[in-house]
């Protein structure tokens, strides 16, 4: 019983972090119908920025989020203006190709600048745990999950309480309608993309403590994040949150009770099962392509 509780705790903590990482991806898809395959590479880039800050100044990775988030926001804005805006209305396969090319380019650049060496940020608490009863709660996971939930909360408040946030949601629900009531849909798209990429700032900083990483690690992350947003319903933020927690728990349970061999397959199995049984995901809305066309 303790063992099961322990497994659930570990799964939920990781799930909280997954939720933050997936939020940007699902947000971008929701508003722009662009699948940003480079999200994983941007995550690793933010982790490398955190690593630089930590080694040069000793800045705690959780504090470094205050630096990496605006940095990634700016980078997201630039990527949108320079590349994504040009294929904005092209078929979705074109945007996938473009962002995949971006991911590979970023991997190459990171390899040249930071070398193909495994890195990790190791503040004092990264291997410590709180012991409660017979259970242990790793401190890094707890802080990481806490910060991730805080960032998600801020994002939620922004989307529901501010004019810009409501504009994003309006554009995601119905772009033409939003345009009619005075929303600058193109400006909203740029801002959404930038915010989506900005979430990798916090995500990458947390990742840098929880995992060791190197430039090619991004493939693993993007597949996991895609699994989450497909399960949650492409474009649905609450869906991605629930799906991330489920995936975290499912991975942990699979490792303990089935086989470690199968744990990394979980995201792919999730994608397949969801596509078969409920293609719109947990909280996604059905696409009415017949009407939209």
């Amino acid at each position, binding site marked *: 019983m303790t*063992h099961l509780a*322990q*497994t659930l705790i*570990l*799964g939920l903590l*990781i799930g909280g972090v997954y939720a933050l990482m997936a939020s940007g991806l699902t947000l971008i898809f929701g508003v722009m119908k662009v699948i940003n395959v480079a999200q994983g590479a941007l995550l690793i880039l933010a982790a490398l920025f955190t690593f630089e800050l930590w080694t040069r100044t000793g800045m705690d990775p959780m504090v470094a989020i205050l630096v990496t988030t605006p940095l990634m926001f700016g980078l997201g804005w630039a990527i949108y203006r320079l590349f994504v805006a040009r294929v904005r209305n092209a078929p979705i396969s074109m945007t996938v190709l473009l962002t995949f090319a971006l991911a590979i380019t970023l991997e*190459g650049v990171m*390899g040249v600048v930071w*070398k*193909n*060496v*495994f890195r*990790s940020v*190791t503040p*004092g608490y*990264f*291997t*410590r*745990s709180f*012991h409660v009863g017979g259970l*242990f709660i*790793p401190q*890094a*996971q707890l802080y990481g999950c806490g910060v991730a939930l805080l960032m998600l909360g801020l994002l939620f408040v922004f989307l529901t309480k501010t004019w810009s946030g409501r504009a994003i949601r309006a554009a995601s629900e119905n772009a033409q309608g939003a345009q009619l009531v005075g929303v600058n849909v193109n400006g909203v798209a740029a801002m959404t993309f930038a915010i989506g990429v900005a979430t990798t700032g916090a995500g990458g900083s947390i990742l840098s403590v*929880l*995992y*060791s990483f*190197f430039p*090619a*690690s991004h493939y*693993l992350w993007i597949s996991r994040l895609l699994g989450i947003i497909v399960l949650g319903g492409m474009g649905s933020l609450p869906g991605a949150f629930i799906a991330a927690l489920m995936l975290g728990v499912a*991975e*942990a349970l699979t*490792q*303990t009770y089935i*086989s*470690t*061999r199968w*744990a*990394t*397959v979980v995201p792919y199995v999730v994608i397949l099962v969801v596509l078969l049984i409920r293609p719109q995901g947990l909280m996604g809305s059905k696409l009415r392509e017949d009407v939209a066309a």
Partner: protein
Amino acid sequence: MGRRGSKLLGILAVVALVTAACSSSDDGGGGDGDGGTIKIGASLPLTGDFSQPGGEAKRGYEIWQQLTNENGGLLGKQVELTILDDASDQNTVVSDYNRLISQEKVDLLLGTFSSLLNLPASAVAEKNDMVYVEPAGGAPDMFSRGFTYLFFAQQATATHQGDLFSQYILSLPEGERPTTAAYPTQDDPFAAPVIDGIRAQLEAGGIETVYQTVYPPETTNFDTIASDIKASGAELVAHGAVFEDGIGMIRSFQKVGYSPASFFETSAPSNSSQFSDAIGLQNTEGIFYAVSWHPDTDTPLNAEFVAAYKAKFDGAVPAEDAADGFAAAQVLQAAVEATGGLDQAAIRDYLHANSVDTILGTLSWDETGAPQQAFLLAQWQDGASQIVLPEDLATTDAIVAPKPDWAS
């Protein structure tokens, strides 16, 4: 010889060079190589999953080239290296070696890194009747295909890599000897057989297996596995790691508050400062690993290799992977010099019949190209890696046991 004599010799040399240059277009670069150089080709994983060891192997090849050329070259000719990047991809490595042989027309080949990539690459060399000395790739599958041109330039294949560790554990007096063991390993053709070998030997010696698992290379989170091992109560852990997973497992052991009395891990602990930086120097104490090379052993050219590497790469200590690359090139060099030419069949026959001294020690091969020696057993002690077994190559008499608790 007077001045006139030396002038005549000079003219003769020029004539000889010109004719050699003219005729070389006919023989296609084979035979004794064209012009004044010998071309050696290799493909290495310089990007992708194996880029870290691949980059080190490249450095090893390059240091060997530098030292060889400084000492008069190979058969009196300068060595030219062509190293392609296979991006850690099995298809790319095949096309790379085909290109080296048919387009670059290299005189000799050196192998790539990891069993995964050497499996298809060595088949290309075998088909073209070219000697293939590989620096890393000791999976049993490599040597079960009846290849005759393949040679593995380390001391032992993967299943025998942990032999000295199992022997040491079983030699401990009862009471000190662990009774239970856990065997987590990555699903990697080089890591898993090492752990299988150790498990078979320890089980035969009466040590009970209480946990074993094989996890895929994509695994990044080890908290659950560490928690399961802790729950199993194992006193000994033999972990089949590549690199990242080795670090991840140790971190997770610390998080769950578990420290095995005996801890063996493949590959990761041999990455000197990269390993100690990642887990913290104090935490390395007592960790065992099997290793092919150590910077302090007294083997031919070892000191020169370490010095040249340090001079070229900002004072860094070579990684084992760089030393393995260097040793592979030494093996090829020894055979070429002993046979006095570039005849691939002669080189092959020489290596099957003779042993070669390298910076790893003396190596010899059976008819499948599998080496016949034993890996060194190393242990981290006081923040440095030491060879503890075999006794004649040991750099210290002490063995730390049991492993102290994690420092932080």
